[in-house]
């Protein structure tokens, strides 16, 4: 099959650059096929973070009193700072701490996956390596967050992921979860980059996003090791543009 036939036109791309509805649908189909049970349900449908910064809270229903952290369109309460002053502030600090908590969840998730013993040694080594990468990411974000940084994984996300990992029956289940997690983290950074005002935070996010996107590609190859088969879904593994559509929702999964 010629890949060209699978491509959307440039005009379509331009229009759907951020929406990427076709790609998401394609990925959902794949995950439905490949995943075990609810393994795909890592987070509900997400709002782009760019719609969550202060000033974008028009989603509040008429007559209701908006409360930060509980109302769609507002960020969770700003994190408490104890110790070193953060390098970023305001909504950027909230986003950075949220991202850090997600990175710590990824570290935990990989450790849990390896502990299940359901991965082949080479694949488990990959999981360990990616766990180290996520540790680096969390450290880089902690530098920005200073005394507001967190030490625990994102509670909501971890609470959803851990039982899914523990109930996985084989390596494919682990790889599906890992793939899905990496894609969603990547999308979260794509969304965050549209919201972060601080160039320091944007610089760090820009160093992390490509790596997480590469993790996703590696997991796609674990899921589909046959090159020809893998290539038939190349538009899923390598979309034309990185979308923010599947970003993890900061409201649904606050850092603490």
């Amino acid at each position, binding site marked *: 099959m010629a890949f060209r036939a699978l491509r959307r036109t440039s005009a379509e791309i331009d229009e759907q650059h951020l929406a990427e509805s076709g790609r998401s649908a394609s990925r959902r189909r794949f995950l439905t096929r490949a995943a075990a049970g609810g393994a795909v349900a890592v987070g509900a449908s997400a709002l782009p973070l760019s719609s969550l910064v202060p000033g974008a809270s028009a989603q509040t229903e008429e007559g209701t009193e908006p409360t930060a952290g509980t109302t769609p369109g507002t960020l969770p309460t700003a994190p408490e700072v104890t110790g070193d002053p953060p390098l970023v502030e305001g909504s950027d600090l909230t986003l950075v701490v949220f991202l850090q908590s997600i990175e710590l969840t990824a570290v935990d998730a990989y450790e849990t996956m390896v502990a299940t013993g359901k991965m082949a040694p080479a694949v488990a080594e990959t999981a360990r390596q990616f766990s180290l990468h996520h540790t680096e990411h969390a450290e880089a974000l902690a530098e920005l967050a200073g005394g507001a940084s967190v030490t625990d994984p994102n509670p909501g996300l971890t609470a959803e992921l851990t039982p899914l990992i523990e109930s996985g029956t084989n390596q494919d289940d682990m790889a599906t979860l890992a793939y899905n997690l990496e894609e969603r983290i990547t999308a979260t950074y794509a969304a965050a980059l549209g919201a972060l005002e601080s160039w320091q935070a944007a610089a760090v996010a820009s160093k992390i996003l490509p790596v997480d996107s590469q993790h996703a590609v590696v997991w796609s190859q674990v899921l589909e090791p046959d090159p020809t088969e893998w290539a038939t879904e190349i538009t899923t593994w390598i979309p034309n543009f*990185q979308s923010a559509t599947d970003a993890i929702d900061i409201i649904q999964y606050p850092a603490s």
Partner: protein
Amino acid sequence: MTFSNDHVRRELREGQQAHEATLAPFDAALDQAFDPASTTDLATKAELVGAPSRRQLLKLGGLTIASTALLAACVEPPSTDQVAITGTLIPVPTTDVPPDPGSAEVDATLVLTAISIERLAIAAYQAALDNNWLEAPLLVQVAEYFRDQHEDHAGALSSQARRMGQNPDEVEANPYLMTEVLDPAVQAIEAGGGASVVQTATLTLAKELEVAAAQTYTKAGGILTTPALRQTIMSIGGIEARHCTVLAVVLGEQPVPFGLEPTVLAAPPDSYIAPNGPVSESSPTTEADAEAETETE
């Protein structure tokens, strides 16, 4: 399968020539960094020559998913089952970022430079396709797919450039990188050495261009002055990084060599494309911005 020693030696020699050709820009960077008059700091020098820190050494465990090597069947199988540790030097992961040098002029420069890099990548893939440098049909299809994606990226960036008052039609494939990277690599490829050698050299060139693109966009992500611009550039940078991983796997290299994307191989300032239109201090970054600006006027 048997190999003649002469054939092996010839391939090694020509592979080495290709390798040296592609390393030329790196050599130039070393010369510059170690020039006594240079102000390059010790940490950067150490990074350039690949002196790893203790922490990096601990992380050189390598990624070992040999069983999942994408497309590996398309190229000459490695002589052993061990995943190649390529000697890629891992720079010190750092969040040290320079003082924000962003401005509307720099924004326009980075977007135009990005267009020139996309057009260079398109030219490289097109040359590979036109000249049959890739022998595996699947790799040909992947090259077509990547070329087409770069065309889409160039299109999106061109739209952005127009919104910033620039003329993307005047931007050619990056002349500096063409001279310093693409032309020498093409010369080496055209020297031949066997289909397998040509294919490997072509894939190596493609990966180097993808690395340069990904790292340039990462660098831009910390410089561009608006969130919308950063998001746009990294929506492309993340895809170039995926291309890097695919090509690395085919080449038997580490698919994700860094925990934080470095920028040491980003396009150098000498390759930047200066604005070709008026630059305002508040360049519109989205169509909505542009419309709002028009309405204000």
